[in-house]
């Protein structure tokens, strides 16, 4: 590989990390409240709102049903509204976040739902208000599961970010398509795959380790 190509690969790697990092941050900030809402607002939850629950649940499912590549295109007007542009890294971050948020929210929801109802009851019995229950019971007790779910989300996002080339955002997937596939440069293709595999392994390893730490308590 030429030095330029190595530079290009390095830049692509940074782009991917940046896109995935920022989108993952947004997915967590939006996904956890969303998951908390889905769990607490269902009938019999600590803040029942069955109608709103059904509406939000349907919207979440709707977004999850749309394949990422379609979302990327369909969201173009919204992306322009938010970022002022439809190409580049930020133009990819919008659809990536929009796709990852409901995905992560559903995974986090499962973990939150697994928190023993007896714990919520115990918290109520000692005079905890709803926010204390969210803060001291639901989130900390579900944390290992949420963290595991976050790892899964990150890996899925690294995969999805490969399509960001479609809006000129660069990244590893873009390099693989443009140089590896279209110009038949097998070395580049192999290099990209190696970097992706390393990245995914690293994320999974760190995630598993963190979860194991939490569970060992």
């Amino acid at each position, binding site marked *: 590989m030429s030095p330029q190509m190595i530079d290009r690969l390095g830049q692509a790697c940074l782009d991917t990390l940046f896109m995935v990092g920022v989108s993952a941050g947004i997915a967590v900030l939006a996904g956890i409240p969303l998951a908390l809402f889905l769990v607490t607002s269902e009938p019999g939850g600590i803040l029942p709102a069955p109608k709103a629950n059904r509406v939000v649940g349907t919207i979440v499912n709707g977004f999850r049903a749309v394949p990422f590549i379609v979302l990327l295109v369909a969201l173009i007007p919204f992306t322009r509204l938010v970022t002022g542009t439809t190409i580049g890294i930020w133009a990819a971050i919008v659809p990536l976040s929009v796709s990852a948020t409901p995905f992560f929210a559903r995974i986090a929801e499962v973990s939150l739902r697994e928190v*023993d109802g007896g714990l919520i009851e115990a918290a109520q019995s000692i*005079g905890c208000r709803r926010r204390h229950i969210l803060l001291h019971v639901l989130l900390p007790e579900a944390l290992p599961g949420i963290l595991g779910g976050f790892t899964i989300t990150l890996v899925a996002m690294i995969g999805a970010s490969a399509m960001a080339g479609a809006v000129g955002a660069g990244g590893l997937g873009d390099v693989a398509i443009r140089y590896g596939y279209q110009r038949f440069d097998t070395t580049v293709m192999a290099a990209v795959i190696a970097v992706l595999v390393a990245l995914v392994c690293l994320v999974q390893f760190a995630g598993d380790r963190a979860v194991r730490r939490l569970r060992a308590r």
Partner: protein
Amino acid sequence: MAGLTFDSLRDPARWIARDRPGASAAPALVSAIATRAAGTVRFEAVSKTYLSAAGPVQALDRVDLDVPAGAILGIIGRSGAGKSSLLRTVNRLEAPTSGRVLVDGQPVAALDTDGLVALRRRVGMIFQHFNLLSAKTVHGNVALPLKAAGLPKPEIAARVQEALRLVGLEGKAETYPSRLSGGQKQRVGIARALVSRPDILLCDEATSALDPETTLTILNLLRDINRRLGITIILITHEMSVIREICSDVVVLEKGRVVETGPVWRVFGGPEHPTTRALLEPLSRGLPADLAPRLRPHFTPGAATVLAVTCAGPAGPDLSALVAAAGGPVRLLQAGIERIQGHAVGRMLIALDAAGPDAEDRLRALGGTVERIGYVTADD
């Protein structure tokens, strides 16, 4: 639990700092508050119907009940009789469908969110499966009620330490619950329930997940708490021995109704309702029908002690050894010996006219188990 100091909890100045109706800092009231006038519960025609998928389920049917301050009330009844439902109306984990629950004269249903939170700080609860937060240390678990109440950190630390000392877990503050034994977990549960200095403690099958020995230590702790802090305890159990061990009064529930209630000595001594008799049957198992109604849980002068003695060995029980160990007149009430795989296995009910604990120890030394069933008087 020897050597524990409860004095700090008894300090009257600390009690008046709490907001309770009628409490003021007037010195004359201090002693009255310190002797715990608070802690009464009154159920007035409490009914509860659950709406489940399979149709309505009536769990409680017009329950009337008065629990005086400082009592240890036991609730017994078959599974599904409505025990938990009744207990949970006290801190409004469950709202009655009709009727009222009053805690210290205050209707629980009328409370707004703030009032409910305040009530729950005066009513502690412990659970069969402990319900401790696995993500928090023992300290974190016990501190939560105070954190939720917004107390300053130094005070939280002091009160958590005090509560842990009360339950005998001083050294375990930084341990996670998963590293504790069942008995220790329940002690944490008790500390968490007591750290807000409640007037009432609700226990839903609190010892049902524990082995008999641990059960006894937890019961002793509860009795200590009741005696020294004057906290009213309402407990649910399916173990009649628990009731006999610590309760002052007992309520028998059947299909959501109170079918029998009164002091333990009276209900256990002369159970009237068939449900009560059935529930108490294990305690008096094998007792001749004419003796069973005269069985009392407490000693009265002149009463004979009824013991259940089991034996298991290649030879049958040595009666002369038994008589020698009893150290006095022994009456055989009932006995059944079977031979199982070459062993004589059986249970005898004997009545000793003058039995001390040492007689029981000597009997135990013969190799079997000895259980005190109760006391019978010669004739009423």
